[in-house]
């Protein structure tokens, strides 16, 4: 039973559609993609046909217009079955948010409809080998040359890298200005001088591609600049405010999937002449898992609703809280799910070890849990200062 979060009829449609796709199309192939580490194009096509890429994109650009809540519901429902294949969709949202928050009308019209229809995947390029938590340490540059910018450098750990068509990439246009010297550009697969480096071999989310983006005298027209020069870091921050609930939803979905598996197994597994679900030791674990998941869901939905209300200018704190809490709960819940399964849980015969591997990334990307805490504390203190003035 799920608590009643008063979802609208359209939101309910998103949940049902995502569930059908997840169970009918994704579930039969989740072991395959985890094992083979291939990009799940056939499932991506199913997401597209069901309009699942459209949930958060405004209707005027071919979307379903259901905001962050729409994205969260789709991602959560998909990730209950598989948190890796679904990342093709969640990471596309991450790549699309810079366009949603900073693009001009022309750019939105050019790029968003293909993203909404799932015709083109997107990716977000901020991280570099030497610039993870500290984005200002990036060394990729974009030098203006007439009507063009020339990009040089490399981005690493880019989800959907190589498989996406549309990239939002950050580079320094004025290295001397530090945080204010970063700008954001739209790159297209096939742009001259834009290539892909090695594909990472990962612990989890193996159905998702993680590649290096390489820029070697890559010339793009100035109409690819998002916002104004120097606004890059601001765009990145606004993007993360919107996208972190998506990671939280991924974590929440994985956790819920693991809990479902754990309950089912505990009811069937007989030891000492009775199902292990009858032992208080197991019951208390399940009770904790269920309670934490529900608390995580309540926090995430409240944050998503707050962002969608548009009443608050910045939601960095709330987005970070949702991401921090959901991802930590996911790690704990999936670890305990493996514990309940015992030795069987450690084998690839059962899905919980994969859920545990997939969950781990949610405490790392789009800012580690520690970075989320920095974000929360910083904004908390700011709020206190401004309210005491």
């Amino acid at each position: 039973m799920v608590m009643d979060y008063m979802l609208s009829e359209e939101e309910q449609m998103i949940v049902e559609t995502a569930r059908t796709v997840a169970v009918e199309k994704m579930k039969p192939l989740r072991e395959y993609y985890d094992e083979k580490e291939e990009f799940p194009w056939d499932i991506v096509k199913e997401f597209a046909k069901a309009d699942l890429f459209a949930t958060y994109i405004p209707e005027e650009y071919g979307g379903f217009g259901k905001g962050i809540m729409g994205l969260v519901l789709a991602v959560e429902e998909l990730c209950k079955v598989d948190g890796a294949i679904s990342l093709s969709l969640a990471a596309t949202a991450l790549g699309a948010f810079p366009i949603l928050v900073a693009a001009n009308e022309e750019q939105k019209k050019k790029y968003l409809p293909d993203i909404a229809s799932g015709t083109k995947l997107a990716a977000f390029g901020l991280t570099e080998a030497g610039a993870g938590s500290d984005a200002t340490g990036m060394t990729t540059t974009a030098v203006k040359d007439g009507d063009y910018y020339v990009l040089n450098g490399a981005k690493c750990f880019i989800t959907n890298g190589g498989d996406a068509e549309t990239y939002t990439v950050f580079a320094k246009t004025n290295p001397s200005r530090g945080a204010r010297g970063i700008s954001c550009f739209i790159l297209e697969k096939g742009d001259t001088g834009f290539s892909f480096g090695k594909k990472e071999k990962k612990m989890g989310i193996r159905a998702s591609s993680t590649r290096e983006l390489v820029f070697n005298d890559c010339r793009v027209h100035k109409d690819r600049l998002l916002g104004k020069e120097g606004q890059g870091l601001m765009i990145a921050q606004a993007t993360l405010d919107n996208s972190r609930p998506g990671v939280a939803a991924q974590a929440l979905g994985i956790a819920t999937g693991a809990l479902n598996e754990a309950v089912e197994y505990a009811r069937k597994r007989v030891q000492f002449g009775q199902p292990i679900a009858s032992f208080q030791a197991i019951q208390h674990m399940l009770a904790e898992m269920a309670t934490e998941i529900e608390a995580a869901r309540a926090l995430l939905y409240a944050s998503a609703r707050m962002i969608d209300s548009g009443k608050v200018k910045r939601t960095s704190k709330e987005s970070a809280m949702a991401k921090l809490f959901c991802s930590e709960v996911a790690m704990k819940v999936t670890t305990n799910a493996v514990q309940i399964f015992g030795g069987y849980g450690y084998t690839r015969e059962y899905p919980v070890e994969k859920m545990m591997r997939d969950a781990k990334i949610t405490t790392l990307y789009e800012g580690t849990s520690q970075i989320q805490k920095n974000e929360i504390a910083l904004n908390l203190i700011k709020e206190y200062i401004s309210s005491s003035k």
Partner: protein
Amino acid sequence: MNIIVCIKQVPSMANVQIDPETGRLQRDGVESVINPFDEYAIEEGVRIREKAGGKVIVITMGPPQAESALREAISKGADEAILISDKVFGGADTLATSYTLSSAIKFIGDYDLIICGRQASDGDTAQVGPGTAEMLNIPHITYVKKIELLGDKSIRVERIMEDGCDLIESPLPALLTVGKEINVPRISSLKGKMLAKKAVIKTLDAATINADAKRIGLNGSPTQVIKIFTPPQRTCGEKLTGDAKKIAVALVKRLSELGIA
């Protein structure tokens, strides 16, 4: 290409109950779904429309709540949906249903192709499709697994037989019944669901389709359900063993004992 797809709302296969008094299906409180074979009919209609243009009209005869099945069909790509509903249609057997559907189809007019699921999961008769075609006086082909358009006046289809396939050409209009071999039905998209939510479902009653009162509903149904039961399982017969001569002798002896030979 205007395609009419005939569907039926049936109780979900998960929990079918029979009323012990009347021998009819208990429909109250049971989740209703589109008859699974009809899902393939809808999908095939939509695929042909996507290739050849035109429209897909989904029709069903049923109580007002059958409208939900029609809305689902729209979410899966049908253009229009019509509910054929009237109290006097109640209690129809396959003959009366075929008559009612054919009357509605004549009223709708302008169609090139009719597609039905091969049979309904509740009655399992597989009669209504062919029955409707007979009353419309058009050709019908059952158990179709592949449809190929030959221009807009004829089709070539593959029909599944026990020992292989028949390749059949037919002029249009024609009625085809299809099964799960023909395609993989799509999952309703979000936009499809929105269209379904907003769609206006037209209702046709007996008077509108000019149906003969003697041929519809219970009055038009010669079939009477006397009893529905699970036949007792046949027990294993007597086994005679030994060489052929021994068996033959034993067999004749047993038959004459039983007064058969």
